[in-house]
């Protein structure tokens, strides 16, 4: 299992736009790429960790990403509500990015509080969906599911429970398969890893 802060660390590599207030003619060469030149007043792309660092030194202004606006997030929320499956989100790290930007640069982002609530709503909705589908998965004894558009943080929230649960279930099932020949025909009603009855879902 990963710690949430490790996922945040991954999120810090996402690209974001800033408007610097200083001039620096050359490029800055980083492992994740070269960024620059920095010209006061002209927006440019940098990784989030650079942006946060500069912002904390008050040498730039962070431009909120396109999706980080109340009406856009509300749209996503409606879409998510309407769909049975998980919908594609504009960023794989929406929760972490919102959290980071609003902590460091809340003055740069208009309607910060509303955005925070909207993102939390979105997160809650998706987590509820995830939990009910995990439950369904276990209940119906499926062996396969496709989980499109889930973000790392969301996957991480079921990670500590899910593999162990499946493991426990499998050890319980194992014995039925290996030593039970009394009721071979009824096996298809419960899908075990060896009997491949499944339906792609979630």
């Amino acid at each position, binding site marked *: 299992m990963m710690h*949430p802060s490790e996922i945040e*660390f991954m999120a810090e590599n996402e690209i974001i736009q800033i408007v610097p207030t200083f001039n620096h003619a050359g490029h800055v060469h980083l492992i994740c790429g070269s960024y620059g030149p920095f010209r006061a007043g002209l927006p440019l792309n940098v990784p989030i960790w650079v942006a946060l660092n500069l912002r904390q030194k008050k040498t730039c202004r962070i431009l909120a990403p396109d999706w980080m606006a109340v009406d856009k997030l509300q749209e996503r929320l409606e879409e998510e509500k309407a769909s049975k499956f998980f919908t594609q989100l504009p960023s794989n790290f929406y929760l972490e990015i919102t959290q980071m930007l609003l902590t460091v640069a809340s003055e740069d982002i208009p309607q910060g509080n509303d955005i925070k609530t909207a993102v939390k709503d979105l997160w809650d909705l998706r987590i509820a969906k995830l939990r009910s589908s995990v439950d369904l998965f*276990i209940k119906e004894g499926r062996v396969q599911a496709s989980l499109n558009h889930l973000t790392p943080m969301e996957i991480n*929230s079921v990670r500590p429970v899910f593999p*162990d649960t499946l493991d*426990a*279930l499998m*050890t319980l099932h194992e*014995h039925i398969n290996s030593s039970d020949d009394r009721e071979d025909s009824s096996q298809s009603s419960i899908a075990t890893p060896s009997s491949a009855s499944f339906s792609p879902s979630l």
Partner: protein
Amino acid sequence: MYRNIKPHYFSIDAIMAAQEKIQCSFIKNVEHVDFLDMTNAEKDEESDPKIELPLWMIKVFIAGKSIQFDIPKAYNEIYRGVLTADANVVDLFKLCKHFYLFGKFLSQLEHREAYEVRRTLIQTFIDRFKQTMDWAQNIDDNLPCFNRLDCLERSIFNDARVAQQHLNTYLTEGSGQMEIAAMISNYRKRKMHESRVLE
């Protein structure tokens, strides 16, 4: 983080589960084991009196076809009915500390109800899973709930709980200072040791 759920030779849970007692009676005369029954230490084991033996010992006698046992209370027909009706209301820990593991061992022994026991185990686990997960992720003070879980469920519960707490702390307080990974700090220690050896 990932526990090995499968029982192995040194697994404490498996040892404890095999220690649970089962009521049984001998159907043949068995010599030299009269020390097992403290109540009538006079004679060798005979057919009629029922005694309680731990599961691992019953296994040995079963191999010699000299014993027959009753399915323990937690797995008998009445409780199977209760568990099928609503597994969520049962206090598993009170019923049997290692409900799943002991049940699994039990169903491996030859008995006419073994198959039903297995089915009940799986169904119970599936039915209770959602409740376990919900408790782990939602309620703050959940000792009363925790007390009703079997040992296997407890380990899953604890893992889920820890993860949820990490997430909650992250959401309320942010990530804070990152710590050095254990690998890096070990590497430093090793390097220091190496340089000392070289001197």
